[in-house]
């Protein structure tokens, strides 16, 4: 169905940037002050409102309850991500939300989390909430982009980095190829709950694979641009 929650909720908030940390040359985290009484479910997102534009970001609980973390990929032509990458600390940000239905739903089927790039954010939020025992495929170019690996790997039943660029040396447990290739060739036939977060092209391709190889499975998705 067409998304019924394209617009974020009406709850408007203001927060300030506490901290910025670059993880790679084009990806960073922003720690924001958590507004009083602000609650969200792991997997939900907020909508940042900046200069007449808006962008949605998944929320990750911070190291302390007073912080919210956003995982942001800087886009060369991106007005919002450029602003967020350069604005001074303590800059105020307006946002609406939380919104979205991309939350973990316990079931008897194994949960397969599939992320590309910063699409790991909602899964990191679930993991920070104590979730364990899932299978995670994280598709990135190289090992340096395996954000939140330290958090995810110990909690996962299987943690499978899928690398599309150079493989590390010495060789690791990483899968050499896209997450979709892993699904087509490696994942055993069965009935799963697939949770997809990342680029639209990945999500469309995974859904096509699920329809053919894992037809009785469930699919929940969140698109990142």
């Amino acid at each position: 169905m067409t998304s019924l929650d394209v617009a974020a909720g009406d709850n408007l908030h203001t927060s300030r940037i506490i901290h910025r940390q670059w993880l790679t040359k084009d990806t960073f985290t922003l720690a924001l002050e958590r507004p009083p009484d602000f609650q969200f479910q792991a997997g939900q997102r907020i909508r940042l409102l900046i200069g007449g534009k808006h962008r949605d970001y998944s929320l990750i609980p911070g190291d302390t309850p007073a912080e919210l973390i956003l995982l942001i990929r800087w886009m060369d032509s991106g007005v919002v991500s450029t602003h967020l990458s350069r604005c001074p600390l303590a800059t105020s940000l307006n946002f609406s939300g939380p919104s979205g239905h991309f939350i973990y739903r316990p079931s008897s089927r194994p949960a397969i989390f599939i992320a590309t790039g910063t699409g790991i954010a909602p899964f990191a939020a679930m993991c920070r909430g104590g979730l364990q025992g899932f299978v995670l495929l994280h598709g990135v170019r190289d090992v340096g982009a395996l954000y939140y690996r330290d958090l995810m790997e110990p909690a996962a039943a299987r943690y499978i980095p899928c690398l599309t660029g150079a493989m590390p040396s010495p060789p690791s447990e990483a899968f050499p190829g896209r997450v979709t290739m892993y699904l087509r060739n490696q994942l055993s036939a069965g009935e799963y709950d697939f949770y997809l977060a990342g680029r639209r092209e990945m999500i469309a391709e995974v859904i096509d694979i699920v329809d053919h190889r894992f037809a009785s499975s469930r699919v929940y998705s969140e698109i990142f641009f």
Partner: protein
Amino acid sequence: MKVYTGGGDRGRTSLFSGERIAKDDIRVEAYGDVDELNSLLGVIIAAMPHDGTARIAELRQIQGDLFRVGACLATSGEDPTFAATRDLPLENAHFLEKAIDQMDEDLPRLSQFILPGGHPAACWSHVARCVCRRAERHTVRTVRQSSSKEDMYAGTLTYLNRLSDYLFVLARYCNQVTQTPDTPWESA
């Protein structure tokens, strides 16, 4: 945010509860009808005569309710807790009943069938009423043909039933405030 994913290009779609189903599944028909109905309410609002603008806030509220109905129908019965949180409370149907009673107070009593027609807003209300009945029929089939339990959709079924009554009365109301006479059906 883009509105397309490409995930439905091969005739299948995802429910809120995660299942992949064919786009001609009766459940998709049902929430598709609700979507069509919601769009028709937008047409009614656009066509509403000046003297009927008091009803516009009411219609906007109903449009919001129909979004919830669509979300409820897009959730299968396998996850009862999840579905239960989406069903409309019966208070929403009571809201319609109050609106019906309020409009009906000033309407002349019907003593025979009337032909759908009159002011454009009334005509669209009749069309919406028919789509609402279809949505209700498809919802009933959805409940009957799936593992969904009827009581999980009790609020939705009541609401759709009451909404078609509301739309019938709204059509008469639009004709009345524009002094457009109802056309009685002359049986042969």
